[in-house]
């Protein structure tokens, strides 16, 4: 058996996901991207409803201008880590802006959102410590646990009592434990019971880190996320976020109410041993952050779309993954072919969405994931609802 032989089952999965159409549902080739909501796929202009561009800032004029200016004045890359030659004024200013926005003393920027989770979690919990992680956490969280020398134990998804039982069993070691949850889960779009998680974590003297990758920008005052919305920023220890969703770039951050978090710069391998983000990425992200903090107009537009869309798909009889409306709506199917059929039908109607199947989905579910953007127009939302209505009549996707 060769090294590559073990990947044979993936070839079968790829063939199955290709569906009956000409365009594959995974790694769908984008021929061109025209705006935050339009691209060309297979020679056809399509409406994008399968990105994480929640505020539509990838084409914001100020963000683009900031990136262009940074390239012209600072060059294309830093060619060094933050601990060497890659520690520019822009990186430090962006960290200060994030920390100030949260009212906290510490922030570290990482080169990707994935590395933010890897870098913060793996360094915070080391040899002799414990990581208690939600079973449905993002791959980056589980990979962070593998990188860490801590003992990792999973608890049932969104179940504070299940977490409490595991903390109880740890006894005194609970005080050496980092609890890891997400505020909004990106596949089904369901929210965590954060207040209950905070209470359980405090009861046992553990620390809590919350990944707000899919909620930062959309929830809470100034879009700071669900912890801020619930008034928990004085009780949560660390908040993680990414630049590649609502901020329209690439990179990640971790902010903390503990000033000593800054010392992780000397201990976090995913921070130490990689090049820092290029100046253009930092400049565009900083412009996007200022835009996000400046007003609620983009959030108001997005939430208007969300409520209209969520009500419509529920009326159409689709089984929706979360009872809480949010920027992600997951249409759930027991059968893979049904999900593929809807994904292909939407693409045929000129609407690109995401198809997600096991094992990358929770509970073995097959999902068509639709994400909305503040850059969508009312007409765009109408087009999605109309297409889903027609397909509902054909596919009979009524809640199973």
């Amino acid at each position, binding site marked *: 058996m060769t090294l590559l032989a073990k990947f044979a089952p993936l070839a079968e999965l790829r063939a199955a996901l290709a569906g009956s159409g000409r365009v594959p549902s995974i790694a769908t080739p984008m021929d061109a991207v025209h705006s935050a909501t339009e691209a060309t796929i297979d020679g056809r202009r399509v409406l994008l409803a399968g990105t994480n561009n929640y505020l539509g800032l990838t084409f914001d004029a100020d963000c683009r201008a900031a990136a262009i200016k940074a390239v012209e004045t600072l060059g294309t890359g830093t060619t060094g880590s933050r601990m060497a030659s890659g520690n520019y004024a822009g990186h430090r200013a962006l960290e200060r802006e994030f920390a100030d926005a949260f009212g906290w003393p510490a922030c570290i920027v990482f080169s990707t959102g994935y590395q933010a989770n890897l870098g913060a979690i793996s360094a915070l919990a080391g040899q002799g410590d414990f990581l208690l992680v939600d*079973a449905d956490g993002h791959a980056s969280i589980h990979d962070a646990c593998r990188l860490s020398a801590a003992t990792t134990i999973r608890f*049932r998804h969104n179940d504070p009592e299940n977490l409490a039982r595991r903390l109880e069993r740890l006894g005194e070691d609970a005080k050496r434990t980092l609890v890891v949850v997400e505020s909004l889960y990106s596949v089904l779009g369901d929210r965590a019971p954060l207040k209950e998680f905070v209470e359980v974590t405090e009861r046992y003297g553990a620390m809590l880190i919350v990944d707000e990758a899919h909620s930062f920008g959309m929830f809470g005052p100034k879009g700071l996320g669900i912890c801020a919305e619930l008034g928990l920023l004085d009780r949560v220890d660390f908040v993680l976020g990414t630049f590649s969703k609502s901020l329209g770039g690439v990179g990640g951050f971790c902010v903390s109410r503990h000033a000593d978090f800054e010392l992780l710069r000397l201990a976090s391998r995913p921070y130490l041993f990689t090049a820092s983000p290029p100046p253009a990425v930092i400049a565009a992200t900083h412009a996007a952050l200022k835009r996000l903090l400046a007003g609620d107009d983009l959030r108001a537009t997005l939430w208007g779309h969300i409520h209209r869309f969520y009500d419509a798909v529920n009326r159409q009889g689709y089984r929706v993954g979360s009872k809480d409306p949010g920027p992600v709506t997951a249409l759930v199917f027991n059968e893979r072919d049904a999900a593929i059929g809807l994904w292909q039908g939407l693409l045929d109607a000129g609407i690109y969405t995401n198809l997600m199947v096991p094992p990358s989905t929770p509970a073995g579910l097959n999902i068509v994931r639709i994400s909305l953007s503040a850059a969508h127009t009312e007409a765009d939302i109408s087009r999605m609802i109309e297409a889903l209505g027609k397909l509902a009549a054909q596919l009979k996707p009524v809640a199973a």
Partner: protein
Amino acid sequence: MPATVDRVELAVREALKIAVPDIGAVDGSTHLASELGLDSAQVMDLIMEIEDHLDISIPVATIAEARTLDQLCDSVRRVVADNA
């Protein structure tokens, strides 16, 4: 056979029935992935069922090497022994 061994194997088999309701006959050498068709997420569901049955916490790394039912039982026994 120590009482602990019986308790662990019973718990693993009970958990298996809950995590994989349509499971057929299995013996100790049954391969969790290739024979039962469990993917990584289903194995993790199975582990959490076992934790509930035995009221223990099972570190992820402890069961990473388990490929068969017997190996899984052995891994769980080690956790039970460590907690004793």
